[in-house]
């Protein structure tokens, strides 16, 4: 994809026919997707469908047995995670995974681990604090002692600190109050508008389809549907699973 305007800063993430297994237990079979720049792409699917496993495969934590993954025009299949991250992919992982014995600010700094420029890091830190003023007040507090909502802010802020080309978000709303969930969706939309592509796994199907540009549905390790949000709402599988 050429992009003369400069808003779309990378070639898409291509997932091409990957098979992923933990030991002998196959989880994903023949999964193919395209995650395009400038868009929010969402991934729906029941518990255990393999959504987080797909993310692990993209990040190189559980490399695929077959198939290939390419990002920004480069093959990243089987590359070590830090190299994949270095290409411009960041992740807000399932379950937040903050560093409990580090302060909120150190957690944020970990998000920019590969960034060497002190100025850039400081600017991004200020931006995250602008987004979450609460974190600015509590920057010295150990993240492990923060409330669940505050920890979610740390995790989201940490994901933004590398200013990634593609941000992968795995269930950021889990355990948050409706107000915070709404706030999350607002932030995700804003991240996308600022030029970061978003790959979003969410359980709030209505809200997710409301902000997404494109979506896939995963069921028992296979892609069973892919399309525009309006199409997915009409999709038989999605309706059965989510809209009763």
């Amino acid at each position: 994809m050429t992009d003369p305007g400069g808003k779309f800063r990378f070639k898409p993430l291509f997932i091409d026919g990957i098979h992923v297994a933990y030991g002998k237990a196959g989880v994903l079979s023949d999964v193919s997707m395209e995650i395009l720049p400038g868009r929010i792409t969402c991934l729906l699917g029941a518990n255990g469908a393999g959504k987080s496993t797909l993310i692990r495969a993209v990040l190189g934590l559980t490399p695929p047995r077959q198939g290939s993954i390419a990002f920004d025009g480069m093959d990243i299949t089987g590359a070590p995670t830090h190299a994949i991250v270095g290409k411009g992919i960041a992740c807000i992982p399932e379950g937040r995974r903050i560093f409990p014995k580090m302060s909120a600010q150190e957690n944020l700094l970990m998000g920019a681990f590969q960034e060497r420029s002190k100025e850039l890091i400081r600017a991004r830190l200020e931006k995250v604090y602008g987004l979450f003023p609460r974190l600015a007040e509590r920057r010295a507090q150990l993240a492990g002692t923060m409330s669940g909502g505050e920890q979610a802010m740390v995790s989201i802020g940490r994901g933004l600190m590398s200013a990634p080309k593609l941000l992968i978000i795995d269930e950021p709303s889990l355990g948050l109050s409706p107000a915070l969930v709404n706030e999350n969706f607002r932030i995700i939309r804003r991240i996308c508008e600022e030029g970061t592509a978003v790959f979003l796994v969410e359980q709030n199907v209505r809200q997710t389809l409301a902000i997404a540009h494109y979506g896939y549905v995963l069921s028992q390790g296979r892609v069973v549907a892919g399309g525009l949000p309006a199409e997915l709402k009409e999709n038989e599988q999605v309706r059965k699973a989510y809209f009763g």
Partner: protein
Amino acid sequence: MDLLLQYCLNGLMLGMMYALVAVGFTLFFGVLDVIVFSHGDTVMIGSFAGLATYWWLHSTYPGLPAGWAVLLVLLAAAATVALLGIIVADAMIVPLRKGPALNTLLATMMLGTVLRESIRLFFPDGSNPQTFPALLPGWSWRGGNLILRFDNLVLFCGGALIIFLVHMIINRTRLGMAIRAVAQDEEAARIMGVNFRFVVLATFALGSAVAAFAGVMNGMYYSEINFSVGLLLGAIGFSAAVIGGLGNIYGAILGGFIFAFLQTIGAVAIPFASAYKDVFAFGAVILIMAWRPTGLIAEPSSQRV
């Protein structure tokens, strides 16, 4: 009174040595969740590498000033042992993580034997104790029956400096931040872009280099080394790390001094049989473990690094 003070001085010296060994155990456990049983023998290799360096320096540059000699011996010992640590981590410990943790335990125990036997068989006259040179001038300060040796003072300050450096590396550098991140959540650290393999190897280099200092310190303190010194030092360092709460660096340092303190008490309290001081100290460690199973300053969730 002087005698008591003398015991305390010696105890501080030993405590520093044990703390340096314990820091390695606790660092390795922090990043990889493994107990590296061969770490005591790594200390021993450090002693012998220092001795070999001294021999070489002595024959090649006979007039070398004492300060330079000590520095070069330390650097050479640290470099040798750091390299050994890197190789052991990369070739053995990281690959073994795919299997049960007991395999690592067993493999590092066997590695310890290999290291000991290698020195015994291949170091010149390695099966006999070797005289370790007094690298520093034999000045000492005397007050009554109290003797304060100059070289001990230097070694103690050097040890304190090393502990301070480790503290700075862990808390103030990018590598240290990565080490702490890996210790707290390995996978999250990877997702943040930390090169896991590099961090593990750097940690092993660091912990081993610190052990090398303890090895040279041990040689200079006792003026003698042998191929099996690592057995006791390893057991002591491991105990110290456990008393302090495995994974906690400051706990390990505290544990080292506590162990030396226990040995000193053992020696003072049973003067007619100070040979039992280790029995007393290890017995006390067992009691401490029964009283505080997760270590003296461990937090409920078992603090890491």
